[in-house]
């Protein structure tokens, strides 16, 4: 009797082992391949630069270097700074173009004023770190200016230089901060039109469109967050609406259901221009979607575009479910040029 019972037991055990073993192996292997790439992200930011002719993207000369690891202060003279020799050129080039990363099309309206070149210079220094970036700079001018053209060429960025002058009736007066006349609208619409005309509605290119004003501050993390946008993604923005930051309200299921703002939180999309990005396909599929020019109340400009593209429930919250601030709505002071006097004291040929 006992032998009859024992053998089936052993068979049982064998059977169970044979069943469980391959599944555990499978699950382990699957887990490792899914998690490992995430773990492999290094702490330091790799700056991969290469020398290449500014216009030729296909020719890649291999001269790359990597940023040094940070050093802790108060070390002995034998500091463990890991430094890599860099090639010595003045202007760096953007990271090499990748065939798998979606392109980020950054639309920046700009206008001539004393701080313009400074603003564009530091914005370019930021954008030079972002791979697969296409900068669409739209000037508020009748023709593209030489100042901006030269700046763009010198940066080595992948860019498109457009210009359109805001019609007289909509231009805000020199010093007036009149919120009823949204600045940059005509320029942003031109960029949208350019994208639609250049790429066509059947384009299979993967991309994201982001509206970046030239005086804000952007962290590099922001661009990587927005790259995976499928419809419209949103995140908090600092220093808007009279608050430390404004952000979307996200529920436990990861869906946006409202807006954490004081200024008119009942707007369809109570968000700043810098707080969202749109998938390129959505822009191309809805060719009638533009920013509204006429009759837009202050703060409703973003809604005028977004309501044609997406509903609240389709929004994708980024920046750790909208808990981190990755973009700041900084504004630059207007410089005091009182000593220039009426005739201008400094040499007007010196470009500032």
């Amino acid at each position, binding site marked *: 009797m006992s032998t009859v019972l024992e053998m089936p037991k052993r068979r049982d055990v064998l059977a169970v082992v044979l069943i469980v073993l391959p599944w555990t192996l499978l699950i382990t292997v699957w887990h490792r391949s899914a998690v490992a790439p995430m773990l492999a992200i290094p702490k330091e*930011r790799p700056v991969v630069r290469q020398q290449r002719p500014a216009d030729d993207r296909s020719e890649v000369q291999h001269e790359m270097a990597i940023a040094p690891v940070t050093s802790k*202060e108060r070390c002995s003279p034998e500091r463990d700074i890991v430094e890599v020799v860099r090639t010595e050129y003045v202007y760096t080039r953007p990271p*090499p173009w990748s065939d798998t990363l979606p392109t980020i099309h950054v639309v920046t309206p700009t206008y001539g004023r004393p701080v313009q*070149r400074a603003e564009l210079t530091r914005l370019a220094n930021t954008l030079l770190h972002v791979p697969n970036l296409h900068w669409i700079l739209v000037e508020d001018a009748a023709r593209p200016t030489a100042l901006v053209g030269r700046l763009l060429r010198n940066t080595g960025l992948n860019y498109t230089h457009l210009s359109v002058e805001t019609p007289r009736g909509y231009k805000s007066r020199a010093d007036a901060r009149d919120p009823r006349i949204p600045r940059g609208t005509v320029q942003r619409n031109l960029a949208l039109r350019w994208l639609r005309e250049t790429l066509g509605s059947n384009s299979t290119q993967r991309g994201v469109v982001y509206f970046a004003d030239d005086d804000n501050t952007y962290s590099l993390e922001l661009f990587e967050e927005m790259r995976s946008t499928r419809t419209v993604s949103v995140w908090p923005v600092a220093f808007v609406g009279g*608050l430390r930051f404004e952000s979307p309200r996200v529920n436990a299921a990861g869906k946006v259901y409202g807006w*954490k703002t004081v200024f008119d939180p009942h707007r369809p999309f109570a968000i700043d221009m810098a707080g969202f990005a749109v998938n390129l396909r959505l822009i191309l599929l809805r060719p009638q979607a533009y920013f509204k020019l006429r009759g837009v109340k202050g703060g409703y400009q973003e809604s005028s575009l977004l309501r044609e593209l997406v509903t609240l429930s389709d929004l994708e919250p980024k920046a750790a479910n909208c808990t981190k601030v990755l973009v700041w709505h*900084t504004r630059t*002071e207007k410089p005091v040029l009182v*000593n220039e006097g009426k005739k201008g*004291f400094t040499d007007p040929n010196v470009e500032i």
Partner: protein
Amino acid sequence: MRLRFKLKTVFILYFTVSLLGLMYALMHLGQHCECSEHDMTKDRTISRLLGKLHSLQGHTKKEPTKPHLPTIYVITPTYARLVQKAELTRLSQTFLHVPQLHWIVVEDSSQRTDLVSHFLEHSGLVFTHLHIPTPQDRKLQEGDPNWLKPRGVEQRNEGLRWLRENIWVGEAAEGAVYFADDDNTYSLQLFEEMRWTQRVSVWPVGLVGGMRYEGPVVEQGRVVRFHTGWRPSRPFPLDMAGFAISLRLVLRNPEARFDGNSPMGFVESSFLQGLVTMEELEPKAEMCTKVLVWHTRTEKPKMKREEALQAQGLGSDSKVEV
């Protein structure tokens, strides 16, 4: 009998499930996979590894030894305010492009703040994090115009002190020291211009002194006077961002520092006087005809609504770092 039956069922179940799984995988073989995030990180890893590979290949090739690049020591005084993190962020994005740069950040604080510490650790730059508080009587009070008292004096002096204590004069002390405020704008070319400073090099600064730009006037390769809209009789009517001093000069003159008690606009002169004469200045930026740095200032963000909310206890989440 019962046992065998149970086993058979288990095996049948097992094989059915595996078969279904296989069919599912086969069906999804040709379709677009939602693994863009994986691709991106893999891609980044690949670019990084490629870069390492090429730099290593470069080392093994026979090359003429490149001249060692002198280090640029950038001293930035900073203080806590709403826009601090934003300013430091965009400043670091510029510095990341400059080779051989050592950033010395000096906080106006009695201790190192978490915000700046974390920021520097993740910036990717070579840095030194110092701190020294400004004495109360030298601090600007609420409502004071920003030109009333010179700012950052103690912090810059602290940066100089650190350099003198930690860099040995004998150690082929090549390099330049530059005082970069955290709200100015710097072009990349500026750093290459200042890198080879022998004594003190100078260049124009945009948007300062109430003018489009302010700077030295150069004739026949030498600085002859200064173009400025305000008190041109100062020994060195320059802005802090308009000059760089060689490391050697800093180390060999341990007494040279900024004088916080000097009258308005004379802080730079208080440092440079005794170190160099106008004739010895090295003009950069194409004989001081190009503007490569701008004295931008960032507006203080309007917080009226925030303050109103905080009075009600409903302010934005203070745990979120801005």
